[in-house]
């Protein structure tokens, strides 16, 4: 069972919810949490645990073999991403622009561009009791999040049985890395705050999830500030509000330290119970 925790807007509490929820759930059963916000993963700050494995993650890029090349220019011609440049005496590959489509490599008439691996990031696995935590982080300068997200999801799919609860902390926004992180999940929890920014971005996130046709519910964080706009929207659109977390300075302070909230704050524990119940209902 795979559950994505997403938000249109950054800073609404997505990671707060995913880490607290994963830890809380791991007290009931075996749980997996994967941080797929590969540009700026933050969950690790909240999870204590033993590092049990670290793997470099690779993407495939073409590698130019000068001795075979006839300078026909086909590679540069077919590349839609300008990752291959034909110079008078050299074919230059720009690995960071490469989308690994293999077109240049397979269409080269003399096989002068075999694909080879190029490091793009790191995937680490931690164990904290019943919680298996996986964090993938893109190397600085790497431009594409999607391949790393995809590989991380593949890893999780292969390593853990289908029935195990798996939470995916997704990147913020609605662009293609978010789609990649969400698309294979069974349920999406949309985290928002009851403000105009929160509502505006929730609408975008909800549209995204509807487009992917995945059942979803909303968690309202910092409940009590702002206005009722989010609640009204959810009612109009028939989106269940599955939990709320009150706005409190104490919550903000605990979060700032990297502490888990549900152990100290009753309302947060209640919220976790509500969300867990919703998930159970879906199973």
């Amino acid at each position, binding site marked *: 069972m795979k559950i994505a925790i997403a938000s*249109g*807007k*950054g*800073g*609404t509490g997505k*990671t707060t919810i995913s880490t607290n929820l994963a830890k809380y759930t791991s007290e009931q059963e075996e749980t997996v949490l994967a941080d797929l916000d590969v*540009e*700026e993963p*933050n969950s690790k*700050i909240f999870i204590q645990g033993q590092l049990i494995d670290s793997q470099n993650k690779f993407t495939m890029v073409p590698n130019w073999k000068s001795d075979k090349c006839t300078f026909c220019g086909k590679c540069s011609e*077919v590349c*839609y*991403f300008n990752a291959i440049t034909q110079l008078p005496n050299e074919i230059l590959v720009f690995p960071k622009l490469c*989308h*690994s*489509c*293999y*077109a240049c490599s*397979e*269409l080269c008439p003399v096989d002068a561009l075999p694909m080879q691996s190029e490091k793009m990031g790191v995937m680490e696995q931690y164990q904290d009791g019943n919680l298996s935590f996986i964090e993938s982080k*893109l190397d*600085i300068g790497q*431009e594409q*999040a999607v391949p790393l997200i995809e590989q991380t999801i593949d890893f999780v799919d292969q390593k853990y049985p289908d029935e195990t609860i798996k939470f995916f902390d997704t*990147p*913020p*926004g*609605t*662009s*293609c890395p978010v*789609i990649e992180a969400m*698309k294979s999940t069974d349920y999406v929890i949309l985290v928002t705050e009851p*403000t*105009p*920014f929160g509502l*505006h*971005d929730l609408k*975008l*996130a909800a*549209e*995204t999830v509807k*487009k*992917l046709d995945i059942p979803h519910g909303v968690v309202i964080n910092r409940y009590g*500030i*702002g*206005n009722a706009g989010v609640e009204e929207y959810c009612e109009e659109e028939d989106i269940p509000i599955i939990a709320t977390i009150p706005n409190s*300075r104490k919550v*903000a*302070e605990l*979060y*700032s*330290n*990297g502490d888990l909230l549900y152990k100290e704050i009753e309302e947060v524990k209640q919220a976790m119970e509500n969300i867990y119940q919703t998930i159970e209902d879906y199973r």
Partner: protein
Amino acid sequence: MKEIVVISGKGGTGKTSITASLAYLAKQEVIVADCDVDAADLHLLLSPEETVAHDFYSGYLAQIDNEKCTGCNRCKEVCRFGAIEVKAGDYKVLPLECEGCGYCDEICPVDAIEMEEQNIGEWYISKTKVDSSMVHASLQIGAENSGKLVTRVKNEATNLAEEKSLNKVLVDGSPGIGCPVIASLSGADYVLLVAEPTNSGFHDMKRVYNLVEKFDIPAGCVINKADLNVELTTEIKNFIRKNEITNFGEIPYDDAFTEQMTEGKTIVEAENNEIKDQLVEIWNKIKSN
């Protein structure tokens, strides 16, 4: 021409709220550019009007003409993204999977495939509530945020500034550390970092500062919600000092930000507000830097 870019690394630090406040204070001295194009929010505080919209194109999508298709299956065989599906003999491209690489087009023996450039968003020029011009954009759901739209917004803003003989562009930058941020930072003359004293906020700010250093852009930093965690605020201040980043001070955590936002206003529009004075000072310092 001075390009001032406001970034934070992490979302939710108050970057957009602060940028909106500076835009409000700067009035018609600046062109405002909202480069946070994936779920843009700046317009919610600046009430843009008289908007002129332009289509934005980027990336390609394969289109298969089933009349010409002979069912040889080559396209499906070569596609690395699982973007070609066959149903009842009809070959279909899955838009969310298609990467626009053109390999299928190249390989099709009967020329049944075409690559079509995609309209993935829009960019706008509007008038803000303080009568300044604002360039902003919206990216469609699932679109690739390559930085191209960010670059378009910035270029239009810079052009507008030149047209109107203004010498400052104020940019709400993208979060993260990828292409959109790189595009936001490229050409910047000054960076304002908005930090928050949380572990994740500080962690992300350091990561994005890496980029600022690489581009060799002078920077200043304001610590928002500073009283939430005194220890972390001190750590951030040490980091600022060590890296020779100008310290623009600390703004306390204040519900007034949200209260104002709920009414579509910036914090500097609230009465009797110390934060307003702080922001006025920050803007004056940035202007003269």
